[in-house]
């Protein structure tokens, strides 16, 4: 069935935008600081309902083993919720990305929304049929004075494949900055990059 002209135009515009800003071949899947194994995921099989791998790497201050596990779990959950809301979840294609930043402070959400083409799938949302997670890794560095975790840097890496008009492997990596107040971890800052490349052996539908 021929696609509507408006969608073809929009796809071309998005491809151009990706080429200009995202770096068509700007990265491979190796060597990331959040990686937990040296092997490439270029051939990894998509895993349905993939769970995030979250682990505490460094602690400034003191934190018991039990609390380390709790911090890894809770920070990992916050990051994973953002992965789902911003990139992986929901129906595709759709017109709007919606609220892609759960767990962010009001100010951080405002900043992230301003950068939504990077901090979410806003650029692709109308031109893909679906996404499949390839890798979800979170490594946490904890600030824990007086044995109480107060802040954390979540070094993350999310790799996913898109299907549809734009079939790409997307690699999002960087840091989310969190503080723990009133028992909840909230994201107050971010520093991230994204790269995309065509998927090997896959042509756009």
């Amino acid at each position, binding site marked *: 069935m021929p696609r509507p002209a408006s969608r073809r135009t929009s796809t071309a515009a998005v491809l151009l935008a990706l080429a*200009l*800003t*995202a*770096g*068509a*071949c*700007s*990265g491979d899947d190796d060597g990331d*600081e959040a990686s937990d194994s040296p092997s490439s995921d270029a051939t990894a099989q998509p895993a349905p309902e993939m769970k995030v791998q979250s682990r505490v*790497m*460094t*602690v*400034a*201050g003191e934190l018991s083993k039990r609390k380390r596990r709790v911090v890894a779990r809770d920070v990992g959950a916050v990051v994973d919720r953002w992965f789902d809301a911003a990139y992986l979840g929901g129906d595709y294609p759709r017109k709007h990305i919606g609220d892609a930043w759960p767990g*962010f*402070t*009001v*100010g*951080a959400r*405002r*900043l*992230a929304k*301003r*950068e939504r*083409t*990077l*901090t979410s799938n806003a650029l692709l949302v109308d031109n893909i049929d679906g996404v499949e997670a390839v890798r979800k890794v979170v*490594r946490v*560095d*904890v*600030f824990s*004075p*007086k044995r*109480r975790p*107060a*802040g*954390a*840097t979540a*070094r993350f890496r999310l790799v996913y494949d898109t299907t549809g008009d734009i079939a790409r492997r997307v690699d999002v990596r*960087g*840091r989310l*900055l969190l*503080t*723990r*107040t009133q028992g909840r971890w909230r994201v*107050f*800052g*971010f*520093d*991230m*990059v*994204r*790269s995309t490349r065509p998927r090997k052996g896959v042509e756009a539908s």
Partner: protein
Amino acid sequence: MTTRPVLVRSLRTAALGVVLALTMLLVPNSSVNPTDSALVRVPRAEGVDLSPDVIWILALGSDARPGQSVTRSRADAIQLVGINTRTGAATSIGVPRDSWVGIPGHGNEKITAAMYFGGPKLMAKAVGDLVGIEPDYVMVSSFWGLRHMVDAIGPITISSPVAFSDPHLRPQGFRKGRQQVGGMGALAFSRTRKALLRGDFDRSANQQRTIRAIHAKIRAKQAKPGFIEKGVLAVLTNMDAQVPPAELYRIAQAITQVRPGRITTCVVLGGIGNVGGASVVFPNRSQARRYGHDARKDATIRSC
């Protein structure tokens, strides 16, 4: 026809030729395999939420000796630091410690005495009255606190505009230009006064150079896992920062977002005088106010 236009034209032609030659060398023809090299802009998104967008921190170096209260001694270094989390700009306004000002409840005194009389809050009031900006936070560090903090992050690179030495603090001195120093060197660089041509004013400027150097070090190492967390812990241990740890952590992360090219620093100047036998600085109040007015909303001073 004179020789000069011909020469100019020849130079232009030669320059154009060089540019074209370089362009041919550097920009491959489209028929050449385009994957041999590439220049790709990797888009980056960054931001830190710290309300309000511009925060002001009064950074004080206390001259407390071991056993003395850090927050009830005189302030040897007085820097009012503004950070704009929206633009990544930052500024530091240096106030000479001997500035002769009105201190609420204590008449006219050297501004350094405000902390001795009333702790960090009175110091914040005195600096706020002079510059016109009330700081949001006051952070007080002792001599050894600064030394330990610099030692914790590793050597920093300071840039001295002149060579100078101090027989007590740094007999071997500092040479003109960039040099690496550890905690002790950073302390000597920030404290030495008598060896400098403009005394207190130049010392205040050197304190700002130390702040820049510390910031550059933090920026360079911020991506190292756990570096910021360890740094904040060192600050908490060595500085009397009367804010919750989570808030301190947010401030520290905001500092890492400051861009070196957007840092401006100025020192409040003034005349040297004598009051009751003591050497004092009569600060240029209109200049201090101008700095405050200029930087209040965006943490940027256009010119000193």
